C-alpha cells in the first residue's frame, strides 16, 4: 500500500516570483538578494498508511506551511507531494484528505448543519449521504442542539467541535489536525483525544501538529521535530527521549531545539 503522505523536496519561499520557482525546480537557489521569506526548504517526509504522526516545532517552524502545501492552500515553490500515491492536487487525492485548521475558519453565514452539508457537497457527497453523515457528526460532537445556530454565535469549544466535525464530514483517509485543541478546556481536550484515537483505531491516518507535548506523547506513534523549515529528528516519543538523553518529551524537545541555536 502506498504511503498516506509522501513529501519530497518541498520548498516554500513566500512572495516568491515565477523566476524563483523555475530556479528552484531545477534545484538552483534564487539569485542573491532576491526571493521572499524561506519557510520550508528541501523538506522530505513519508507517513505510512494508518499511522498517527505528530509534527512538532516552535511557531514559525513551517508546520502550517507544510500542511497548507499538502492541502493545496499555498503554491509550493518546489517539490512533490503525494497522498496515497496520487499527486496532492489531483481531485482523487483532495477527496480523501480532511483538514481542521489552526484558525477557526467557519463560514459566518451558515449554521452548524449547513456548514456540514455544504462541506459534504464541496467534497462530492450526495444530498442524502451528506444529511446522514451530518446527523452522525452532530451526534458524535454533541452539536445536535445547536444545529440551527450560525457559527459566530457558537462558544469557542463548540466552534472547535464543528471544525473537527467538518474535517471528518467526508470520511477522509488522511486527517490533518493543525493544533486542534488550542484554546480548548481540559474536558473537551480529553473528549477530542478520545474521538481522534477512535478514528485512528478505525484505520484513519492522522497527522497532528500541536504545542502540547503531552498531547503528542499521549497520542502519536511517531513524532517529527522541525525547526526553521528543516526536519531535525523523527522517532517514537521513547526514541526521541533516548536520542536526546531526556526524561520527558518536553526535555527532548527543548534539547532538540536548543541544539540548533
Amino acid at each position, binding site marked *: 500500500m502506498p504511503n498516506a503522505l509522501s513529501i519530497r523536496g518541498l520548498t516554500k519561499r513566500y512572495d516568491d516570483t515565477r523566476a524563483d520557482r523555475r530556479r528552484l525546480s531545477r534545484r538552483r537557489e534564487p539569485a542573491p538578494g532576491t526571493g521572499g521569506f524561506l519557510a520550508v526548504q528541501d523538506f522530505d517526509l513519508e507517513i505510512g498508511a494508518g499511522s498517527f504522526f505528530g509534527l512538532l516545532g516552535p511557531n514559525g517552524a513551517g508546520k502550517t506551511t507544510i500542511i497548507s502545501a499538502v492541502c493545496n492552500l499555498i*503554491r509550493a515553490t518546489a517539490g512533490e507531494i503525494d497522498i496515497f500515491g496520487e499527486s496532492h492536487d489531483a481531485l482523487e487525492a483532495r477527496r480523501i484528505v480532511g483538514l481542521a485548521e489552526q484558525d477557526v475558519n467557519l463560514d*459566518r453565514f451558515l449554521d452548524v448543519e449547513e456548514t456540514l452539508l455544504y462541506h459534504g*457537497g464541496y467534497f462530492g457527497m450526495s444530498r442524502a449521504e451528506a444529511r446522514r453523515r451530518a446527523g452522525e457528526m452532530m451526534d458524535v460532537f454533541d452539536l445536535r442542539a445547536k444545529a440551527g445556530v450560525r457559527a459566530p454565535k457558537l462558544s469557542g469549544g463548540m466552534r472547535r467541535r464543528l471544525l473537527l466535525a467538518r474535517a471528518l464530514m467526508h470520511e477522509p483517509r488522511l486527517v490533518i489536525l493543525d493544533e486542534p485543541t488550542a484554546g480548548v478546556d481540559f474536558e473537551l481536550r480529553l473528549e477530542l483525544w478520545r474521538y481522534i484515537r477512535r478514528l485512528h483505531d478505525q484505520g484513519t491516518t492522522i497527522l497532528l501538529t500541536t504545542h502540547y507535548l503531552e498531547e503528542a506523547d499521549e497520542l502519536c506513534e511517531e513524532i517529527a521535530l522541525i525547526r526553521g523549515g528543516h526536519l531535525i529528528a523523527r522517532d517514537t516519543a521513547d526514541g526521541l527521549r533516548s536520542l536526546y538523553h531526556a526524561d520527558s518529551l518536553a526535555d527532548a524537545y527543548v534539547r532538540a531545539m536548543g541544539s540548533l541555536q
Partner: protein
Amino acid sequence: MSAAVSALIDRRRGLLALSKREADRVLKLWSQTIVAPVLASFLFIVVFGLSLGGRIRAIDGVDYEVFIVPGLIAMAMAQAAYSNNASSVFQARSDKYINDVLSAPMRPWEVNLGLAFGGVVRALAIGGALLVLALVATDVPVRHPLVLALALAFLLVLFASLGVVVGVYAQTWDQHGFVNNIVILPLSFLGGVFYSVDLLPSPWHEISHVNPIFFLINAIRYGFLGTSDVPVEIALGVTATLAAACVAWSASMFRSGRRLKA
C-alpha cells in the same frame, strides 16, 4: 431524471453546492441584498422620472420617465453583481473559510463559476423586481427581447467576474468599495443613464465614447426602447469584449492560484 443528467450532477456536486451557498447568502440577507437596492433605484424612477419628468422634454421620442428606466436597471444590476461577489469573496478570504473550498476536489473553473453565481442571482432578482415596478409605474416597453437578453447576459458576466477579481485582489473593505464608488457609479452616471449622450456638446460627446459603461447602457436601452446613441452591434461588441476580458482575468487567477494562495 435521465441518466446523463444524474451523471452530470454527480460530477459537478462541488460546483452545485458552492453555487447554492452563494445564492443562499444573497437570499438570507434579502433585505440588504435585494430590497434596499430595488428601493433606491425605484426612488430614482419616481423622483427623476415621475416628479421631474414632466418638465423635461422627451428624448428620441421617448418620455423621460421611460427613457431612464433601462439605464437605472442596468446600473442597479451591474452594482449588485459586482458588489455581491467582491464582498462575498473578500469575506471568505478574510475569515479564511475560502480554504474549505480551495482544498475541496473542485476544478479551478468550478470554484470561479460557483463564487460568481451569487452576484448573478442577486442582479437578476433586482433586475426582475425593478422591471415589474417600472412596468407598473411607466409602461416601459421591451422592443427587442433578444438584444436585451444578450446585453443582460454580458452585463452579468462582466460585473460578476469583476466582483470576483476585486474580491480576490482587495486587502481591505475600502478597496472594493472604492471600485464601486469611484469607478462603476460615476461611469454609470456619465454613461448616459439619465440623458442621451447625443445631447452633449463636443468634446464631452466624444469623451463619453471612451466610457465602457456607455456601450452597456446603450445596448440595454436598445433592447427596451429600440433607441441607442451608437449602433447596437457596436454596443454589444464592446460589452462582450469587456466581459470576455474579465472572465479571462478571473479564470487565469483561479488556474494559477495567484493572489488566492500565498
